[in-house]
């Protein structure tokens, strides 16, 4: 499908304007379905093993509600800024889009810093990947999510560079759209992490 056949004007959904763009978005939802299963397996493992602490600290000893609330707020807010970026993209407002994507990336980075601080704190408390089955399954789950955040930050930053260089067109729009879907998915996973890992851990 020739890209030139699509007139670029505000209000046109450039991300699905070409056959290639449509396939990208379609394929990405397939990928998200698979990611859901990946995280489900890690959640299931964690829930089955979370009480096997081998005399080490338990979730109730470790988890700090304030820290979790801040991390949750950061990620939820970054999901909103990512939506604003896509709305700016559909209006062909490149400056606005790059601004909101920049905010999204910065919020992602602060989430990551907070998580690293949290993990270092836990390691000092004797909660490590190898300390118990609780430790292994906790770090496997929350660490995989953190790895997704890291990848998302790098991905969105590189596509921001492309958009800055080439503008918003049928080539860059699907990439921007798909990376924002990925970012929302990271927040979706976090909703279950704060519920089933942190809050459930505090209940005991």
């Amino acid at each position, binding site marked *: *499908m*020739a890209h030139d*056949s*699509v*007139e670029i004007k*505000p*209000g*046109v*959904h450039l991300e*699905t*304007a*070409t*056959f290639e763009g*449509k396939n990208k*978005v*379609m394929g990405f*939802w*397939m990928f*998200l*379905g*698979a*990611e*859901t*299963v990946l*995280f*489900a*397996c890690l*959640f*299931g*493992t964690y*829930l*089955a093993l979370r009480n096997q602490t081998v005399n080490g600290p338990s979730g109730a000893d470790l988890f700090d*509600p304030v820290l979790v*609330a801040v991390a*949750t*707020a950061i990620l*939820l807010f970054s*999901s*909103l800024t*990512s*939506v*604003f970026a896509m*709305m700016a993209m*559909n*209006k062909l407002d490149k400056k606005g889009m790059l601004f909101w994507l920049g905010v999204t990336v910065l919020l992602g980075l602060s989430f990551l810093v907070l998580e690293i601080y949290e993990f270092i704190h836990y390691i000092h408390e004797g909660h490590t990947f190898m300390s118990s089955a609780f430790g292994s399954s906790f770090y496997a789950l929350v660490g995989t999510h953190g790895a997704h955040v890291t990848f998302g930050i790098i991905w969105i930053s590189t596509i921001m560079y492309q958009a800055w260089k080439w503008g918003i067109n049928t080539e860059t729009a699907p990439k921007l759209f798909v990376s924002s*879907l990925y970012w*929302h*998915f990271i*927040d*979706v996973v976090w*909703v*279950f992490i*704060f*519920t*089933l890992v942190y*809050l*459930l851990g*505090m*209940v005991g």
Partner: protein
Amino acid sequence: MADQNTSNTQPPEHKPESKMKHIVSFGAMILLTVAAFVLVLRDVVPVVWVLPLMLGFAVIQVLLQLFTFMHLDQKGSFYYILFIAFGVMVAVISVTGLVFMP
């Protein structure tokens, strides 16, 4: 599924999504998050109710996220919903199996 034809003609013009819709949805997500925290940090309901209620809040929040922020409410999302629903189905089976495995 009107959008599924793979034509290269002009894509239909959409009305620009309202910022309001996303802000309202975001507000609802914040409220659901706060509600989950309150359930755990304050003794408002009996302990047995905490997990089912929290899970309910999480599911509503994720549906909001999928249908507003991830645009599944727009036309032509049938296959996207199909794929993610299939993923969720396998996910639920896997989690249930793992948790209740002896």
